[in-house]
Structures are given as structure tokens and as C-alpha cells.
């Protein structure tokens, strides 16, 4: 039976590839049409119906839907239907499939990695011409709008932007006799590790640091910069230079020699269960982690990423793109929605509900946000860290599949006895090979 199920799995996959092919072959002559949506509620009937694909589940998803509802109620021309499509990666998969079939949503949420692929595939609309007096590119926080701009065209507008943040369990730190703050440097953290490991959580020794496998290359981008190394300079792969080797060796030792960090199935679960005293997680986990800490009755602390030779912190998260193949009036209407998201009060609402960073400068002066920061200083940590955060090295963002196979490499490093230098050499080799294949397309779009 399992053979049958499994065979079905393979068949249907092959079938999908086949169907995709037929779609592509048949589709060349056809125009793009809108993907399927649901029935428009009676009170919004007669409006222009736009479909927006997003990747936000649970509380974050509810926060987005609430904002969309308010947008729909705020005007009388446009009805936005938000459709949840799974993770950023799943959304990209589905978008690719629908593009082949010549069916598209009007708006789509793309991560800092996936928008680059869509841009390289010429699927995105340049947006700089849509701005007017209501919203100017300069209203956005500098790093965010710059990240979505290539060769003076704006392809991707910031929305759910984040950075990594250092989360720690203040209660455990107190018990271990440590200061009431995050470690300033990795060296300091290493000195603190033995004291943390003497604590017990659920019968086990508490681990100092839980590491996630997913997005591990994003987190490690910080470490690279902290060691004055980089993944790449443009498409020129640099991670196997001496500083990079030092950075990865330090982390491998921290995991395998000090046994102070480990690959966790889910660092947020382990952190919540107090099996780990610290975790590197996105700022977007803040609202949820605050609740988790309350429920588990421990004091939550947040801090900047630890430094080594210097400070380093990458930006991440997602933004919106408008599909280039949509008809002009739809694109115009879609931009109206993005303008609404760019209002300071919308941005502040979104930040308070989720922990994502504000995307426009003025949102930071929103009285509700100012109030929240006063009450819970954890919310100000990420805002204070933001000016020092910057766009990741391009290799992870543009080389196809790099974000996946780089994560794989770090997972292998954390979960096996592989020598860190070997791992980085292999990774660099693979990235160089893939970068070579990309070169023509990269030149055409970036130079």
C-alpha cells in the first residue's frame, strides 16, 4: 500500500511537471488571466476585485486580514481578497506554477530572497512611476526601500521587514548569576555558557543557545560581518577567505567543543520550554514570544546580536510585488493598496500586532507605538538595532536555491562532525558553480 501511495506521489509529481509543460507550450499564445478568487461579499460587489497572495498564518495572518478589511471599508472602488499560500517558499512555488499557466494574482508577498528570483524572471512591475504626493519612496525607511531598488527601478515595497534578534531568558540568567542583559560579544557568551549549563530545565541541563536549521544562513550572515567576513561581493564568492573560515570555525567549536549551542527542531519551542536559555530568532517572533514567556512565567529579554570584531546584522523578511503581466488598471489599483500599507498608522498597527519593523519613518512617532515601547522595552530593541542592520550579501539572495543549500550546509555543520573549513570550501565551490550559470541573467538585470 505504501508503495501505491508513494507511487502516486511520484506519478502526480511527474504529472505536474508534464502538465506544467503542456501549460507552457499551450500558454505562449495566451494572455495572462487572474487566478481564481472567491465570491465578492455583497457590500463590495461591483468593485475591482484584486487578489493578493500572502504568506502570513495565525496571528500574523489575522493582523493582515484586519488591515485589508479596513482598506476595503475605507474606499469604494477596490476589493482586495487576501489569499494565504503557505510559507514564502511555497508562495514562490505556486507563483511559478501559475505564471507557467498564464494565471496570476495581482499582488504577491515575496521574501527578501524570492523577489529577486521573480525580478530576474521579469515577472515584477517597476513601481517608481506609481508614487504620488500621498506616498513617496523617501517616506520609507532608507535600507528597506533601497533593498527593493535595482538600477533605479523599485521592484519590491517593504512590508513585513525584520532582523534577527538575540532573545534570552532573564529568569534563567538571574539563577545562573549572570548580568541582566544579553552578552555583548560572542566571547563573553562563551564565558557565560558553563554557568547556564549548570541550570536545570525539565530535568535536563539548560543549553545556552538553540539554533534553527531553517534560515540558518540568514542568521549566520550576521556572524560573517561580525568577523569582518562576507558571503560574497556581488556574485564574487568570498566566504572561504580567512575571516569567513574563522567565523565558521568559532561557531562549530561553540557547538561541538563547548557544547553550548545545538541544532534545534524549533528554537522557539525549546526557548519557550526553557530547554535553551537563548535563541536567535526574527524580530517577527517578538509578539508571540512575549506571550509565550508570560504563559511559561519567565522574564523575556532581548538584545542586539553579539559582536566579535565588529557589529553585524542583516535585514530580512518580506515585501510586496505587483505582477508585471496584470492589466494596467489592476496594477494601478494594487498600488493604491500598497499606499494604504505605507500610511504611518497602518505601518504602526502592523508592527504592534506582529513585531515586524515599521516600514515608514513616520510610523515610529505613532503615539501608540511610542507608548508600547515605553511599556515593553523589548519592542525598542529591534528598532534601535535597525539603523545598524543592512542588506545581505547578494550571493544568498540571487543565486538560485542558495538560501536552501546554504541552510543545508549550516545544518550539516551543526548536526555532524564535518570540519567547518571543509564545509565552507564545499559550499563556496557550489556557490561559484551556480553563480557562473547565473552570470548572464545577472548582468542583464543588475549591471
Amino acid at each position, binding site marked *: 500500500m505504501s508503495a501505491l501511495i508513494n507511487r502516486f506521489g*511520484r506519478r502526480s*509529481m*511527474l504529472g505536474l511537471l508534464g502538465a506544467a509543460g503542456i501549460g507552457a507550450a499551450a500558454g505562449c499564445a495566451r494572455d495572462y488571466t487572474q487566478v481564481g478568487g472567491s465570491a465578492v461579499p455583497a457590500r463590495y460587489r461591483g468593485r475591482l476585485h484584486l487578489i493578493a497572495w500572502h504568506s502570513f498564518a495565525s496571528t500574523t495572518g489575522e493582523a493582515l486580514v484586519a488591515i485589508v478589511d479596513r482598506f476595503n471599508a475605507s474606499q469604494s472602488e477596490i476589493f482586495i481578497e487576501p489569499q494565504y499560500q503557505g510559507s514564502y517558499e511555497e508562495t514562490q512555488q505556486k507563483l511559478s*506554477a501559475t505564471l507557467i499557466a498564464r494565471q496570476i494574482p495581482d499582488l504577491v508577498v515575496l521574501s527578501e530572497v524570492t523577489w529577486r528570483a521573480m525580478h530576474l524572471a521579469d515577472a515584477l512591475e517597476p513601481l517608481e512611476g506609481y508614487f504620488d504626493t500621498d506616498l513617496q519612496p523617501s517616506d520609507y525607511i532608507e535600507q528597506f526601500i533601497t533593498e527593493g531598488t535595482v538600477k533605479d527601478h523599485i521592484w519590491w515595497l517593504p512590508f513585513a521587514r525584520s532582523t534577527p534578534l538575540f532573545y534570552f531568558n532573564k529568569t534563567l540568567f538571574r539563577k545562573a548569576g549572570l548580568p541582566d542583559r544579553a552578552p555583548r560579544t560572542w566571547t563573553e557568551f562563551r564565558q557565560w555558557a558553563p554557568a547556564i549549563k549548570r541550570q536545570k530545565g525539565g530535568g535536563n541541563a539548560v543549553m545556552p543557545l538553540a539554533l534553527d536549521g531553517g534560515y540558518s544562513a540568514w542568521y549566520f550572515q550576521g556572524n560573517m560581518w561580525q568577523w569582518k567576513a562576507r558571503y560574497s561581493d556581488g556574485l564574487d564568492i568570498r566566504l572561504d577567505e580567512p575571516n569567513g573560515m574563522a567565523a565558521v570555525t568559532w561557531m562549530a567549536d561553540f557547538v561541538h567543543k563547548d557544547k553550548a549551542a545545538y541544532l534545534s*527542531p524549533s528554537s522557539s519551542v525549546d526557548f519557550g520550554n526553557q530547554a535553551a536559555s537563548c535563541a536567535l530568532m526574527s524580530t517577527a517572533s517578538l509578539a508571540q514570544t512575549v506571550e509565550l514567556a508570560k504563559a511559561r512565567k519567565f522574564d523575556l529579554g532581548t538584545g542586539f546580536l553579539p559582536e566579535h570584531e565588529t557589529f553585524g546584522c542583516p535585514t530580512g523578511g518580506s515585501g510586496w510585488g505587483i505582477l508585471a503581466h496584470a492589466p494596467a488598471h489592476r496594477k494601478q489599483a494594487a498600488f493604491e493598496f500598497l499606499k494604504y500599507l505605507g500610511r504611518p498608522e497602518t505601518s504602526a498597527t502592523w508592527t504592534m500586532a506582529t513585531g515586524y519593523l515599521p516600514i515608514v519613518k513616520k510610523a515610529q512617532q505613532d503615539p501608540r507605538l511610542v507608548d508600547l515601547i515605553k511599556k515593553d522595552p523589548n519592542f525598542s530593541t529591534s528598532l534601535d538595532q535597525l539603523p545598524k542592520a543592512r542588506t545581505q550579501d547578494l550571493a544568498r539572495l540571487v543565486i538560485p536555491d542558495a538560501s536552501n543549500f546554504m541552510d543545508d550546509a549550516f545544518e550539516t555543520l*551543526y*548536526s*555532524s562532525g564535518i570540519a567547518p573549513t571543509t564545509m565552507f570550501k564545499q559550499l563556496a565551490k557550489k556557490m561559484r558553480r551556480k553563480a557562473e550559470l547565473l552570470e548572464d541573467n545577472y548582468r542583464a538585470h543588475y549591471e
Partner: protein
Amino acid sequence: MTASTPSLARGGEAPTTAVVPDRSSTRSRRTLRRRGYALFLAFIAPNVILLAVFAYWPVVYNGYLSLTSWNLLSDTKPFVWFANYTDMFTDPEFGMVVLRTVIFSGGIVIISIVLGLLVALLLDQKLRGRNLVRTFSFAPHIVSGAAVGTIWLYIFDPSYGLLRQLLGIVGIASPAWMTDSFWALPGLIIVYVWKTAGFVAVIYLAGLQGLPSDLYEAARIDRAGPLTMFFRITLPLLSPVTFFVVVTSIIGSFQAFDVIAVMTGGGPGTATTTLSWYIYEQAFQAFDAGHAGAAAMIMFVLLVLITSAQARFTRNRVHYQ
């Protein structure tokens, strides 16, 4: 047919009638054959068309894709001949994927056949409650892979899992299973064996119950011990069953996907990236239809080779009664 009747009725024209029915019966046979053929086509058409569209065409199209370099997005699919194949055959990572698949499949097939046969032998005894046990041992096989994966994630969890507590009783520290590059693959093999062994047992049990009792009586008269009887009578007579089970479980384990998707996603790193997961990863994470297609062709050829080799090897050894 009707043409021959008047001539027969008239009579006396024997030589002509002898020729006419002959010719007409050839014609009628031809019509019959043609009609039979049409009927045959009509009956198999729905099946053949479905198979052709959903099974054979994708294989052919996949073969074509494997010779192109396509990112699933661009309108053009540049033809690259065998570049994808040479790429993979020179990539040590792909070699590891194949090796891993062999270990994974071999582990599952061997362990689940041994376990399944043992369980079948036990269930073949006339013991009370064996029907219940039979149901229990078959149940894992019909549970969906996603559910199995989720349950075993909890069992394996190194901090909160059931297995950790069981190992704790005998004083063994639980490995990190799914987040340890060494243990993840054995962990998956355990899960698949758990899922497959019951199925193997039920098939073997059917085989055992069909064995002729006179052979055993004769052996008993010759004072053969139970082990001799097992190795000289039971095992050889079960060889067609073994053949069936080996072929289906090799194919099944080569294509295993659901549990891997839920439990490890091919990780940590690439520690559980088997051929089927690799194909998925290349197609839908890396958007590299060429490499995915080539890997799928390699899997296809491997499975055809294994199956035909098995068929040839066992032709002389399989005893059909």
C-alpha cells in the same frame, strides 16, 4: 454470412458452394476479428488513454526536460543534451544521494522482511487473539504517511519524546534523532520498517496458510527438526511471496516521500536526502527542471534494472507450485 445460405438451399452446385462459403467465412472471420478488435480497443481505451496521458506522456516529457536547462519560469528551454547527467555523475553530492537511497532502501527491505516473516510465523500459530494482533500489525500500513511522520516526531523528540523515556529506563541517553546527521537516516528507516513490516507479515501469512501440509508430515516422518523444516520447506516454498515483497518494497522505499517530507525535509543538511526527495528539491525548491528530470530518469532506469535483475535472478529459484 447471408451470402452462403441461398446457394446451400439450392443444392446440387456443390463445387461452387464449396468455394463460396470458404471465401465468405474468411471474410466473416475478418469482420469478426475487426469487430473484436474494435471492441477490444473500446474496452481498453479509457484505461490506455488515462495511462498514456498521466503515466507514459509525463515519462516521455520528463525525458525531454532532462535534456534541457529550464527554471520553470522562462519561456525558453535551452537544449543542453546530456549536460545535466554529466553534471550529476561528476557531483560527489549526487553520489551520496544514491548511496543514501541504497542504504535507506536496503535497510527497510531487509529489516521489514525479516521482521515481517517472524511476525507471520507467530501469527500462523493457532493462538488466541491472533486476529486482533493481525489487525494491529497491519494498521500502521494504512495510516497516512503525514500522520505517521507527525507521531514519530513526538516519539523521537530528544527532550520530550516517548523513546527518550524508554531509553532512559535502561540508562541510555536519547540521540537527537532528527537533528543529528548520523541518526536521522536510521530514524527514518525505523519509521518505514514500522510502517511496512505489518504489510509484509500479512502477505507472508497468506503464503504460509497456503503451504501444503503433506510435505510437513513427510518431513516429520523423516524426523526433520523445526529449523530444517523452516529452511528446507517453508522458506523455499515462500519464495514467490518473498519475490513479490522484495520488489514492491524496493520500489516503495525508492519512492518514499511523505514521511521524509514531514519528519526531516531531507535534513538535517542533506542527511536524509534520498533520490525521491532530491528530485522534489531540484524541481520545486531549486526550480531546476533539467536536473530534476535527469534524476527522475536515473531513478526510473535504476528501478527497471533492479526489477528485471530480480526477475532474472529469481526465475530459477522461485518455486511456484
